């Protein structure tokens, strides 16, 4: 119950936020920040409970008939993410209130960001896979609103749509994968599916499940080659980037892979895909970061690197080091990356630019921000005694302990981290040190709302580094245990002694500092440009080409199917009907012909001949008079057929109607032009073919029906009751005016409406038109 209520409160607050913003003005940010603060405190109470009692489950029936329940599963992994989401969320709301101060859409920002936070909490807490998927899509949806916050700018709209399409496409794949998983595992609850690992992994559908689920996770967590949407999403206001694109949304994919690791992980395919794509993303992301000078882009690409690292670790997965590394790295990354994003935003806000080449020496003007940036960057660079150091040690240990290709993975990890060290230096040192540069705005220290977040997050990075024991047993071990699917107990220590891994850390640092000093040379080198084109620009261009291609196909098929010509629509309808009827009949029933041919008399053959001749003349006639005569011949033949087969009423009616028809035709045709055929020979042949096909289908259906007996029930009923019950001797008339009187009423109404329509067409004129306004 508690989890659901907390989420509902969040929703209510989200929708009340715009009103609050109007009412409370500049204090609204502080008031709203109480929500994530309260949620952080609430989720913190779970930490000791989980450490003592294990995972908790809460469930409320939502649509039980479809196995959809509002069920939540709270274990170490959920709580770690929930704490990151609500904790960072607190600072983001504060930061946003300063960053967007006075913005006319600030209320909308509060609404979207709070709603996003609730959705994200839903993702990491949900137990039911449908509930999870709903929240998952809600994060895509709210992130669309947040990335496109500056909706007057085309670039922002484009980036928002791009993120939505990429993650939304992956989301659809994910839904498919989750449902298949429920189908195979026999439950819609993740907590139960986790126990079905053996069944899932050995089922024939495992490959399909894994690929679909990973398609969702890889797009959400910006894995190569889908990483391009993340740097593009930097069009968002910085609080959004700091929240969605470093600490929370992009980690949703990582969360889900970690969550499902006990159920789906450990197979060769899992290891190949995750370690392969993760390592590639890690290396590509880290070095792409160095190809740019926009602070946010650098941070975005290093986030791609971090996500790649986490994916790779989950791919390795089987060792204790790997699962602990995931837990530690997730926390460390959220702390320093959130802080650095906010710092970048503050620089942009105060100096008016966030291009590294255009700012310098801001340290004097912004001392607190500079200090926070330095502390966060030291953690990011993995320097003793910061939490990032422990994280990096674990990443290296995990790579070394990998089941396959440990040296290659380690080499790649070092390669990526060298770039990471350089990037940390660029972000934290270049803007604040060196000569003071003139910037578009005169820089001041950011307001407290904007430096509180970076300072606290950076200091937490230091605190957890100095005293890792604070979180090891209560938080990290349950997280690692949840990912591994079995209890894990590791001691986190800052100092491991002089191990080979420490040597690699030192080497990374040294190389990173070297790259930092050679950055400008690297960035302008032909190799870096080619690298950016191949791995940064090319995937995004592929996306644009795909979108263009889809638009082209849509346009093409619309032109084909919606040609605007009535005849084309009719041809399609006739062709499809003929095929569907004829194919079904012949394939299901075969060709059966009824008997009774010998009973046809001479005059019946004659009537048929007249009818056929009339129809043929009607088809080929060039003169209007000939045509009217021809259809008259057909109509009167039909009347004679009725007469010959015991239907005198029909015959009389038909003769009257045929007479009226001829009169009507004569009246109208005088006013119309003649019938010169204009169609090409090819189109006539095609039309003849389709028409003949449906005509033949009609004949075949009728012949088939004639081989079956007819039920005499209704015939007998009307015969027995016509006189006795309804006192009429003409049974057809009795049916019309008595048994089916309402049908006849309907018929009269239709005729009346047709009459009104005829009257309107002949007599009424649109007022603006000249009389007989043939102006085409």
């Amino acid at each position, binding site marked *: 119950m508690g989890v659901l209520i907390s989420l509902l409160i969040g929703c209510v607050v989200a929708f009340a936020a715009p009103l609050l913003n109007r009412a409370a003005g500049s204090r609204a940010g502080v008031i709203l920040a109480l929500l994530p603060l309260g949620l952080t405190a609430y989720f913190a109470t779970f930490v000791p409970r989980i450490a003592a009692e294990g995972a908790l489950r809460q469930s409320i029936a939502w649509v039980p008939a479809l196995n959809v329940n509002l069920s939540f599963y709270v274990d170490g992994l959920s709580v770690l993410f929930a704490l990151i989401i609500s904790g960072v969320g607190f600072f983001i709301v504060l930061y946003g209130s300063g960053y967007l101060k006075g913005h006319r859409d600030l209320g909308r920002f509060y609404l979207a960001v709070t709603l996003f936070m609730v959705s994200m909490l839903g993702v990491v807490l949900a137990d039911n896979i449908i509930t999870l998927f709903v929240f998952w899509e809600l994060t895509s949806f709210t992130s669309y609103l947040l990335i496109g916050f500056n909706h007057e700018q085309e670039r922002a709209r484009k980036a928002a749509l791009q993120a939505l399409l990429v993650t939304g496409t992956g989301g659809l794949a994910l839904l498919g994968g989750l449902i298949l998983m429920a189908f195979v595992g026999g439950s819609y609850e993740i907590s139960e599916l986790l126990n079905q690992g053996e069944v899932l992994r050995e089922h024939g559908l495992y490959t399909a499940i894994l690929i679909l689920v990973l398609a969702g996770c890889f797009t959400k967590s910006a894995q190569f080659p889908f990483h391009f949407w993340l740097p593009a999403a930097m069009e968002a206001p910085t609080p959004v980037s700091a929240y969605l694109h470093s600490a929370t949304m992009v980690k949703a994919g990582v969360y889900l892979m970690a969550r499902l690791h006990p159920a789906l992980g450990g197979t060769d395919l899992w290891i190949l895909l995750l370690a392969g794509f993760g390592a590639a993303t890690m290396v590509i992301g880290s070095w792409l970061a160095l190809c740019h000078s926009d602070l946010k882009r650098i941070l975005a690409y290093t986030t791609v690197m971090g996500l790649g690292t986490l994916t790779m670790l989950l791919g390795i997965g089987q060792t204790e080091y790997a699962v602990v590394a995931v837990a530690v790295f997730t926390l460390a990354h959220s702390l320093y990356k959130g802080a650095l994003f906010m710092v970048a935003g503050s620089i942009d806000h105060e100096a008016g630019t966030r291009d590294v080449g255009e700012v310098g020496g801001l340290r004097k003007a912004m001392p607190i921000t500079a200090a926070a940036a330095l502390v966060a960057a030291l953690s990011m660079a993995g320097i003793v005694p910061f939490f990032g150091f422990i994280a990096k040690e674990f990443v290296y240990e995990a790579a070394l302990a990998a089941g396959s290709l440990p040296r290659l993975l380690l080499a790649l990890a070092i390669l990526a981290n060298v770039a990471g060290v350089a990037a940390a230096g660029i972000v934290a040192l270049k803007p604040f040190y060196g000569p003071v540069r003139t910037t578009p705005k005169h820089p001041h220290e950011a307001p407290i709302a904007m430096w509180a977040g970076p300072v606290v997050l950076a200091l937490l990075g230091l605190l957890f580094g100095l005293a890792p024991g604070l979180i090891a047993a209560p938080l990290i071990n349950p997280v690692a245990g949840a990912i591994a699917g079995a209890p894990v107990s590791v001691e986190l220590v800052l100092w491991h002694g002089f191990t080979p891994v420490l040597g690699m850390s030192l080497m990374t640092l040294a190389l990173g500092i070297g790259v930092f000093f050679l950055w400008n040379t690297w960035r302008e080198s032909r190799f870096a440009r080619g690298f950016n084109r191949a791995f940064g620009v090319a995937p995004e261009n592929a996306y644009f080409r795909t979108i263009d291609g889809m638009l082209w196909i849509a346009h093409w098929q619309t032109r084909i199917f919606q040609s*605007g*010509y009535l*005849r084309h629509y*009719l041809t399609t309808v006739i062709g499809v009907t003929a095929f569907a009827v004829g194919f079904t009949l012949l394939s299901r029933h075969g060709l059966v012909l*009824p008997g*009774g*041919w010998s009973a046809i008399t001479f005059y*019946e053959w004659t009537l*048929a001949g007249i*009818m056929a001749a009339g*129809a043929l003349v*009607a*088809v080929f006639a060039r003169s209007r008079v000939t045509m009217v005569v021809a*259809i008259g011949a057909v109509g009167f033949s*039909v009347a004679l057929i009725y007469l*010959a*087969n*015991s*239907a*005198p009423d*029909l015959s009389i*009616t*038909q003769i009257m109607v045929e007479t009226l*028809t001829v009169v009507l035709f004569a009246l*109208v045709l005088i*006013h119309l032009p*003649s*019938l010169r055929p*204009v*169609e090409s020979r090819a189109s006539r042949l095609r039309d*003849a073919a*389709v*028409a003949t096909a*449906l*005509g033949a289908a*009609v*004949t075949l259906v*009728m*012949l088939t029906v*004639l081989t079956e007996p*007819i039920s005499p029930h*209704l*015939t007998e009923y009307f015969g027995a009751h*016509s*006189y*006795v019950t309804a006192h*009429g*001797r*003409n*049974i*057809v008339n009795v049916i*019309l005016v008595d048994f089916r009187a309402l049908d*006849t009423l309907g018929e009269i109404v*239709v*005729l009346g409406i*047709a*009459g009104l*329509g005829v009257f309107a*067409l002949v007599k009424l004129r649109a007022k603006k038109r000249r009389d007989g306004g*043939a102006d085409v």
Partner: protein
Amino acid sequence: MEPLLAIMAGFLFASGLYLMLRRNYVRVVIGLILISNAANLVIFTMGRLARGNPPLVATGETMPAEGFANPLPQALILTAIVIGFGLLAFALVLAYRAYRELGTVDVDAMRVAEPPYPGEKTVSGTPDQEEA
């Protein structure tokens, strides 16, 4: 008679459909008439035929003679003939009005509801002139 009528109904259908696919709207209306007749023949034939035994109750009797014709299809067709005529009248007058308004009876040239796509080649020659 039934198998022959099945063939005739199919033949009328094919002729009517072919006419409905013409560009000249008058031919489309003619096709409509042929299809109405064909549809009536389908209903009539499917109810099976009886010669010389109409569904009437003779004076002094309470039941029709044994083997009387099936009255239900006849009732349906009676309705259909009348409604078919209503439809025909409407369609013909529509042709008249369309010609008055648009100056053509070529359905391909009637592109008011679905205007041509940009750059699409449209119909130029319309079958408007009276034949010599």
